[in-house]
């Protein structure tokens, strides 16, 4: 924090010098060295923010009966994150953060012709796996997509150049591209969350904005207990307890990407 504060004062000071004369710079230096220094400008996390070493999710597919059960989950995610709806306009431009897939698509390569009937017709929720070794992060030439300290694979929309290398790198098809200005296709926007602009890639953010405010992801909340969320490296966390007592599968675990979405089947 010490460093960033100084950086910040430097930047503010320099710009002030350039634009408005020297006075504010002197103020800035005065406040850096003066009595106010202890509580001077700085950055903090929100006190109620939830933190983890690696966030993870356990989806209990036994608690879902049909696609109807998934609808509210998908809806709340797309609604609060201002995900546009292109399904009526042009299917090529579709954007999705969380959606449903059949077993044979969510787990291609694992499906056989003789799958358990429940599994075969069960809709699976799929989303960004927030991999421990994300290939998309490796591919991004600007660090616009990066792995945060709590394990979330996040997008920095300000920095994305729209090269779509991350989309080629993702083995789960979890990323979407804004082929055009998404705003006209957001029916009702959440004014407290930004929209995106054309030409950038987007995907699930594990509700980083809600975690900062001490809330679990919206899909977890809307799942009525079917989705658990917690720290993969905290032995006491809910996800660890579930992983200990249930057989779980992950999508394409063999690729070594370390997906952190686990499915109880």
């Amino acid at each position: 924090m010490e460093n960033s504060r100084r950086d910040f004062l430097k930047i503010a000071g320099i710009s002030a010098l350039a634009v408005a004369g020297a006075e504010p710079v002197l103020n800035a230096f005065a406040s850096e060295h003066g009595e106010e220094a202890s509580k001077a400008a700085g950055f903090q996390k929100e006190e109620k923010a939830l933190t983890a070493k690696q966030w993870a999710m356990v989806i209990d597919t036994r608690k879902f009966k049909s696609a109807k059960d998934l609808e509210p989950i998908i809806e709340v995610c797309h609604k609060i994150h201002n995900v546009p709806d292109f399904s009526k306009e042009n299917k090529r431009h579709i954007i999705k953060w969380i959606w449903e897939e059949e077993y044979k698509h969510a787990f291609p390569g694992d499906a056989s012709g003789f799958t358990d009937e429940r599994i075969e017709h069960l809709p699976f929720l799929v989303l960004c796996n927030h991999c421990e070794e994300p290939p998309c992060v490796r591919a991004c030439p600007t660090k616009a997509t990066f792995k945060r300290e709590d394990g979330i694979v996040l997008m920095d929309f300000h920095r994305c150049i729209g090269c779509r290398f991350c989309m080629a790198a993702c083995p789960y098809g979890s990323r979407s591209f804004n082929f055009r200005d998404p705003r006209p296709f957001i029916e009702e926007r959440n004014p407290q969350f930004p929209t995106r602009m054309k030409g950038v890639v987007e995907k699930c953010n594990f509700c980083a904005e809600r975690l900062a405010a001490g809330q679990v992801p919206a899909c977890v909340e809307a799942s009525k207990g079917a989705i658990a969320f917690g720290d993969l490296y905290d032995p006491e966390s809910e996800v660890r307890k579930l992983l200990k007592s249930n057989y779980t599968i992950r999508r394409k675990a063999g690729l070594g990407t370390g997906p952190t979405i686990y499915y109880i089947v």
Partner: protein
Amino acid sequence: MNKQMYDKKNVIAGIVIFAVLVSFPFWYNLGKAAPAPELVLTDAAKAAKECVMSKEEMKAGHMQLLDMWREKVVRESDRIYVSAKGKPYVMSLSNTCMDCHSNKAEFCDRCHNYSSVTPYCWDCHIDNPKAEVKNFKVSENSKEAK
């Protein structure tokens, strides 16, 4: 050494035309300087009395501040800015800045237009969330989502 200039006429004419073209914006706009715009503060902004930095610092460096904020929020997951006076603010263009300065046209645009800059902040960030927030509803249990 031969000091003669070849194609003298053409060279001089060329230089003159070049000089006129290059200085075009200056003499074309001569005497037409637009008056500096006046910014309008909303009642909320007036009542708050102070911003996250002093008025002078904000005038000169709000863009650097916002740039810093977005780095902090997006990349380092710090969401709270503590001002020099020790007051905490949530670092959010829409939810903090535009909460007070809900008059984008009179507060932001005037000066941006005057100085001929077109920041694309509002391509994504919503300029007056308060006016819209009442109408936005999701299922009851995730209403407080930010």
